[in-house]
C-alpha cells in the first residue's frame, strides 16, 4: 500500500497566492521521503493539508488509503507530526506533556508510563523530564516535539523542517533517530527540508518543490544522474567585471551544458570535467584573467536544485538569484 498519495492537490489562499498548485505524490510505505524547497515554496502548506490541518482547495490526498478530507480523525490516529514551529506547552514538564499527548492518542493505561519513559530515553531527555519545557534549549524542544509525535507508534511521521536552526550535534541526533526508526520499525517519514545534505543523507526519494509545484522527483542518485555533467567551479581574481568576463569566456567553450555566476564563482556544467578544466584555464588566460581556485566535482543535490528551480538554496532556506545561464538543452524556471 502507498503511505501517501496525492492527486492534483491544490491550495489557493487567494487567486494570486497559489501556495500549492496541483501536485501529485505517491510515497511507498517504509520509505523516507524528502520534500525539498526554499521558504515559501509550498512545503509546509502541503504538510498541513496531508495532516488534516488545512482543507485543500481542490484535488485529493490519501494517507494509508484514508481520504484526508473524508476521514480526518482516522488519519490523525495513524500519523505523527512535528511541525516546523515546535508546538509545545512551556508550562508543562516534558513528562507531563508526553503523558497528555499519550492520553489524547488513547495509549492504553498499562502502556502509558513505560511508553513515555522509553521515549524520554530515546530522545535523551530522561534527566530533564521533570523540568518545565520553558527551561529546555532549542535542541531539547525539537527532540521532545519528535517524541510527542511518536507516542502512539504512528505508521507515518511528518517532520516539517525538523532540524532548522539546530546545532550540528542536535541535527545529527535527529537524523539518527529518524534513520533508526525507519529501519527498526518501518516507519514512513515525510520530511520537508531546506538542507540538501539532509535530503541526500536520509531520503530514499526526493521531490523538489518550487513556487507551489513539484519540479523534479526521484532518488537522490537519479536526480544527480539527471544532470549528467560534472561541475567545475572557477573563482577568479578581481571583481564583478572579471567574473562577468570569465562567464562569457566559459560560455564560448565547446561541450558546455550550462554556465552561471553563483555568489563569487562561475559554475560550469560540462560533460567531461577533467578534460574541460585545461581548456577553461586557457580561455581565461586568453582574456587575461587569473583563476585563484578551480575545482571539479560530481553534481550534488544543490546542483540539481539549481538546475530545476533556477535558483540556489541558502542555508536559511532563502533563495539566491543567479545570472541567466547559457543557452542549453536544460529548461529552467524563471525566478
Amino acid at each position, binding site marked *: 500500500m502507498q503511505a501517501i498519495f496525492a492527486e492534483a492537490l491544490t491550495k489557493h489562499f487567494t487567486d494570486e497566492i497559489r501556495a500549492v498548485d496541483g501536485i501529485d505524490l505517491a510515497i511507498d510505505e517504509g520509505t523516507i521521503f524528502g520534500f525539498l524547497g526554499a521558504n515559501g515554496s509550498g512545503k509546509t502548506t502541503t504538510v498541513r493539508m496531508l*495532516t*488534516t*490541518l*488545512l*482543507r485543500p482547495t481542490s484535488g485529493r490526498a490519501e494517507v494509508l488509503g484514508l481520504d484526508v478530507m473524508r476521514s480526518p*480523525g482516522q488519519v*490523525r*490516529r495513524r*500519523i505523527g*507530526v512535528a*511541525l516546523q*514551529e*515546535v*508546538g*509545545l*506547552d*512551556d*508550562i*508543562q514538564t516534558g513528562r*507531563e506533556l508526553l503523558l*497528555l*499527548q499519550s*492520553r*489524547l*492518542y*488513547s495509549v492504553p493505561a498499562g502502556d502509558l508510563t513505560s511508553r513515555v519513559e522509553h521515549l524520554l530515553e530515546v530522545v535523551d531527555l530522561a534527566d530533564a523530564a521533570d523540568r*518545565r519545557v520553558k527551561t529546555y534549549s532549542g535542541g531539547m524542544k525539537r527532540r521532545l*516535539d519528535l517524541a*510527542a509525535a511518536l507516542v502512539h507508534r504512528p505508521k507515518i511521521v511528518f517532520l516539517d523542517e525538523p532540524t532548522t536552526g539546530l546545532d550540528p550535534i542536535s541535527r545529527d541526533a535527529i537524523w539518527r533517530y529518524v534513520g533508526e526508526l525507519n529501519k527498526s520499525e518501518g516507519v514512513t517519514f515525510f520530511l520537508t527540508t531546506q538542507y540538501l545534505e539532509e535530503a541526500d543523507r536520509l531520503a530514499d526519494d526526493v521531490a523538489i518543490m518550487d513556487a507551489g509545484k513539484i519540479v523534479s522527483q526521484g532518488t537522490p542518485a537519479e536526480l544527480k544522474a539527471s544532470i549528467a555533467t560534472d561541475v567545475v567551479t572557477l573563482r577568479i581574481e578581481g571583481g564583478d567585471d572579471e567574473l562577468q568576463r570569465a562567464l562569457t569566456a566559459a560560455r564560448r567553450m565547446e561541450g558546455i551544458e550550462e554556465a552561471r555566476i553563483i555568489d563569487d564563482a562561475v559554475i560550469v556544467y560540462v560533460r567531461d570535467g577533467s578534460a574541460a578544466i585545461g581548456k577553461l584555464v586557457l580561455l581565461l588566460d586568453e582574456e587575461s584573467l587569473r583563476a585563484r581556485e578551480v575545482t571539479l566535482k560530481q553534481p550534488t543535490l544543490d546542483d540539481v536544485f539549481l538546475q530545476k528551480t533556477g535558483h540556489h538554496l541558502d542555508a536559511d532556506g532563502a533563495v539566491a538569484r543567479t545570472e541567466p545561464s547559457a543557452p542549453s538543452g536544460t529548461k529552467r524556471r524563471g525566478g
Partner: protein
Amino acid sequence: MLVMRDTWYLMIRALRESVRQPALEIGNVFIPMFFFAVTVGAIGNVAGKAFGVTNYTAFQLPVAVLQAVAGASGTAGLATVGDIERGYFDKLMLTPAPRISLVLGRLAADGVRVMALTILIVVVGMLFGSGMKTGPLGVVVLVAMGGIFGLAYSGLGMALALKTGSAQAAQLGFLIFFPLVFLSPAFAPKEVFSPWLEFLATINPVTYIVQGMRDLVLSGWDVNSLAAAFGAIAGLGLFTMTLVLLALRGRTS
C-alpha cells in the same frame, strides 16, 4: 464519551497552568472582592432608604460572582491565543481528540476557577452578614450557576481568540461584560429604574442570572427564578458555543 474524557484531560492541564502561574489569578480574586467591599461600603447604609434593600451585602453578593465571571472570562481565550502563538494548538489539533474538547477543556477550567472564586465570595459575604436564605444547598446551586455561567461566557473570548488569534480581541468579553452588568438590576432593584433602563434590563439575560442568584441568597427557593436564570445561561451558552464552533471550523479552511 471521548469528548468528556479528553475535555477532562485538557481541563486538568489548563488548571495546572493556573496553579503554576498564581500571579495571573490575583486580579481575578482582587477585583470582585474590591468592588464588593467598596459598593457595600458606599451604598449599603443608604440602600434601605433609597430602594428598600435592607441587606445590601446579600444584594451585592451575586454581582461579585458576576465580576468573578468577567475576570475569569478572558483566561480561556488568552491562554488559547498563547497556545496558537506557540504552535501548541496545532499540536492538539493534530491529535485524534475531538476538536470541541480542545476548547471545552479550557472553558471548563474557567468554570472551575469561577466556582472557586464563588466559594470565596460566599464565605466573605457570610462573614460580613449576607446570610444564605436557601442554606448549604443554595450555596451549591449558586456555585454551580456561577461555574456554568463562567463556562458559557468564556466562550465569547474563546471564539474571538480562535477567529483572530489576538490577545486584545480575546479580552473583549471582559469589556462587553460591564454594560451587561450595568444594564441589569445589579446595583438597585429594577423597580426603581427609569422606563428605558427597565426595558433594557428586561431583555438583558444577565438580569435573570443576577435575579436567580439573588433569590438564592435573599429570598429562598423560587423555581421560576432559577429556571429563568439557567435558561438565560443556556441561551448565552448556545450562542457562544455556536461562535466557538464556527471559529474552530474557520481555523482549518
